[in-house]
């Protein structure tokens, strides 16, 4: 039994926005894999809900725009992302990251939008979307606006959504993925049904001869209060040979991450993981890009 105040099933995006305007205390529920747990544990007990679960027509699915940008509806499930032909052809690393969340049941219910809107650092698709420089299109009473993912996270559990605003599209511009290859590593205590101790996503663009790193993106989850990119390490790796970057990326990442000490894992342990996994993610991304390793 769940202690739910009331639930309104929205009929369209504008309808959901009006419902949220009418009841500013209401929470948005999509897949429910996060909200229902918080209701059960009491944090959201008795809250009113606005469900966007039935807006799949408007908000689910992955497509390619005419100019080659990947457009992901926020109701796309983890599973839907992993198995999308568009994702596989353009940003397979995102499908790979989505496939590491929870277990099969969670991946069939939980959504990519929810994974961003709950604002948590351990979200398995968030670090890859950071690395990909996703653009988040939101719609609210004031109309539509686009927020670069770099400006999305405002603090633990806080994102840049205004009152009665909904995330309606995740856009990955063509220039952010074309010529790039990536790899995501989720480090957790179990191989399934677990939350990341540390997540690292590395994207790399190699020189035509595959010897040199032309450009690089390195993003982490659980290495700080919100998902973030190691921009200094990214700059420092650009122009290095693949072999040299492999040597330097771990220590460079270690300097930039700022994990906390918690009972789940110590700071020292997470620092060690950040160092080791950056290198491993980089090598795998480079290998996918054609580097001879």
């Amino acid at each position, binding site marked *: *039994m769940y202690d739910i105040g009331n639930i309104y099933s929205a009929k369209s995006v504008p309808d959901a926005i009006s419902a949220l305007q009418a009841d500013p205390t209401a929470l948005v529920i999509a897949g429910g894999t996060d909200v229902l747990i918080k209701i059960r544990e*009491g944090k959201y007990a008795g809250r009113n809900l606005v469900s966007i679960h039935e807006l799949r027509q408007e908000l689910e699915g992955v497509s390619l725009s005419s100019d080659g940008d990947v457009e992901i509806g926020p109701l796309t499930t983890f599973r839907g992302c992993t198995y999308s032909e568009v994702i596989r052809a353009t940003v397979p690393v995102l499908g790979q990251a989505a496939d590491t969340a929870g277990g099969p049941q969670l991946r069939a219910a939980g959504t990519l939008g929810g994974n961003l809107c709950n604002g948590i650092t351990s979200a398995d698709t968030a670090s890859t979307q950071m690395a990909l420089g996703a653009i988040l299109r939101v719609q609210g009473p004031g109309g539509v606006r686009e927020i670069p993912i770099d400006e999305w996270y405002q603090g633990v559990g806080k994102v840049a959504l205004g009152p009665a605003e909904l995330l309606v599209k995740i856009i990955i511009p063509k220039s952010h993925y074309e010529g790039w290859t990536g790899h995501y590593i989720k480090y957790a*205590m*179990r191989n399934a049904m*677990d939350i990341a101790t540390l997540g690292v996503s590395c994207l790399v663009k190699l020189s035509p001869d595959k010897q040199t790193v032309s450009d690089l993106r390195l993003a982490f989850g659980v290495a700080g209060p919100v998902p973030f990119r190691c921009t200094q390490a990214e700059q420092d790796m650009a122009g290095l040979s693949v072999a040299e970057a492999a040597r330097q990326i771990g220590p460079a990442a270690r300097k930039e991450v700022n994990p906390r000490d918690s*009972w789940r894992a110590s700071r*020292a342990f997470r620092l060690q*993981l950040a160092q080791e*996994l950056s290198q491993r993610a980089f090598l795998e991304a480079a290998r996918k890009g054609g580097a001879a390793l």
Partner: protein
Amino acid sequence: MEVGKRLSRVDAPDKVTGRAKYTGDLVPRPHLVAKVLHSTIANGRVKAIRTGKAQAIPGVVKIVTCFDVPDIQFPTPGHPWSVEKAHQDVSDRRLLTDRVRFYGDDIAAVVAEDEISAARALGAIEVDYEEYPVVTDPEVSMTAGGESIHAECPDNVLASMDVRTPMPESDFKTVEEVLDCPSYHQFRGHYQTQQVQHCHIESALSYAYMESGRIVVVSSTQIPHIVRRVIGQALGIPWGDVRVIKPYIGGGFGNKQDVLYEPLNAYLSKAVGGRCVKLELTREEVFQCTRSRHAISFDVAAAVDGDGNLMARSVRALSNQGAYASHGHAIVANAVTAFRQLYQDQLGCHAQARTVYTNLPSPGAMRGYGIPQSNFALESMMEDIARAFDLDPYEFRLQNLMPPGYVDPFNGITCHSTALRECMAKGAQFIGWKALREKYQNQTGPVRRGVGMAVFSYKTGVWPISLETAAARMVLNQDGSVQLQLGATEIGQGGDTVFTQMAAESIGFPADRVHIVSTQDTDTAPFDTGAYASRQTYVTGMAIKDTGALFKSKLLDYAAELLERGAGELDVRNGEIVDAGTGQELLKLHDLAQEAFYSFRHSVHIAAECTHQCKDNTFAFGCCFAEVEVDIPLGRVTVLRVVNVHDSGRLINPQLAEAQVHGGMSMGLGYALSEEMKFDEKGRLLNGNLLDYKLPTAMDHPELTALFVESDDPTGPFGNKALGEPPAIPVAPAVRNAILQATGVAVNTLPLSPQRLVEEFTKAGLIGGKEG
């Protein structure tokens, strides 16, 4: 022969189709729902509870607090009762308590029309506490002074023991003199195990109602007859006024060998005039408020001569009992006893153990009952000794093993049969022990492999420490089939199936003519203390064997009447009456049954019932071999292959035996690598849910291999010995020893979790050092 067959589980069709009924499936409608208010401090006293606001919440029927319940203390462990006061369990529980002893202690309860009303009421109850300092470390608890956790136990030491084996004539007067003797290799070690939980999938739940002035409790328990007794004790009512019913249960592993919330549930039903009240714990409550495995620390010492003989050993074990006694000192006593028994000391062994109250959730019984803990210490120690003094770890163990015919000097438990040596050989051959030990020497690089082993012994049942008794009843049906009724319980282990096989074997029936009554109802089920101590195939098996023989003799007497032959000339084979000499079929049992039920001449309802008091015990044995790969920079261990080889005597059902071993090995892997209850300094459980408590998933398991060497135990009813618990025992030390071979790093604290390994590898210079 029905015993020894790979018979499919008798409950399989119902369980796989969802037809099998568990407690939660049976709760009648309408019913009320109870929820317990747990303390939000770990040590102190409830000064006041205000329930006014909660009482006003719609749907709330009744609120009771620690100030309302009877002032009766009762015991909770699933031990047979003792008529001698000195041997009775510690009575330190009340239904609800104003003296708070751990974070989550039960201080009030709400009965409401539904879960939500009950939960809202819990949130509206206001409590004033007086707080005392929280003690979670038993070393501190023994010496800290301050308010005793239980007034009856001023120094917080629940019990202690100090046992020295009799020493043969020599120059040494004490074990300590041997341990300190410079002419022997001297070894000292410290090993620490963690608190873990059973993680049965079905929660702990029950429902209670009154009927004809008596209280009926339907519960997910391993021990219905004991639950009946304890409800009687807790409520101060005659035991016969209590009826306990046990349907199918979704796992217990020892947690449900404790009386959990059944007495409170019974009390709450009485408090609302006998209306049906359901009390179902959430997973978080199961973690926080039910039993677990004791964290035990071991300080060990050994003296070994130049030929690899163990001359003497000592062990000092300290067991963290948490807030309430539950099974208490029996666990650590069992632990150090097995420590002593598995290997022989030429001169002597000195074992000390203490059980100490602290402000943590109380551990109780859990599969292996103290032995997974002491086996981790013992088998890590044996490995470390072998490594320190350049002995072959396999040969060193073999050389010092308990010999056949061994008699424990204190409890008299005897090694009636042993195939441990053959188990070791079989396991070593399976894993390729010699070749791998060789191959994995002197590795370098970040990813390394190793192979490790551990062996164990485990007694069967609880005699002579406690009573062993079981009863069985067999009742003939009109078609010549038989009902089998037991007080012994099916708890998912396959008990009903092997009982069916044993009954069929002892009567001379095919198994499909035996109908087992799975549910225990204490009003009608024969007496048996229940599923624990790997006792049922041994002790209940004896009761079934005796009852089968009696039942068969009654069939033969009646057949003799019908056939006008001497009963001695007849036999029951494959379910029919035959000539004992020629085997020729003389009478269909169906026809015999029809006559027996409906004959005008002589109608008799053929039934048999026997009690077997078991006054023997025997050792089961086994070993584990594990091959691991260690990713040093990530602290990650992958178990590549793992095999358990068991000597549990003759197997009643090899298929179920394998399944039992697989389950135990899985539990052992979680114990080794990831499971641990974590607490903060306030005594609050941090990871009391299945996300944060790292029970391994199917994705975390290697192929599990279960092998057997079947000895024929002369004391077992069918040559069989303990199997239920043993598979969980040797896995953790085998994995630990494999990691030691792979990396050269001996980790002495469980679990061998990634963070701990990274810390240990860093200390050892494998990370961040020259090799890092």
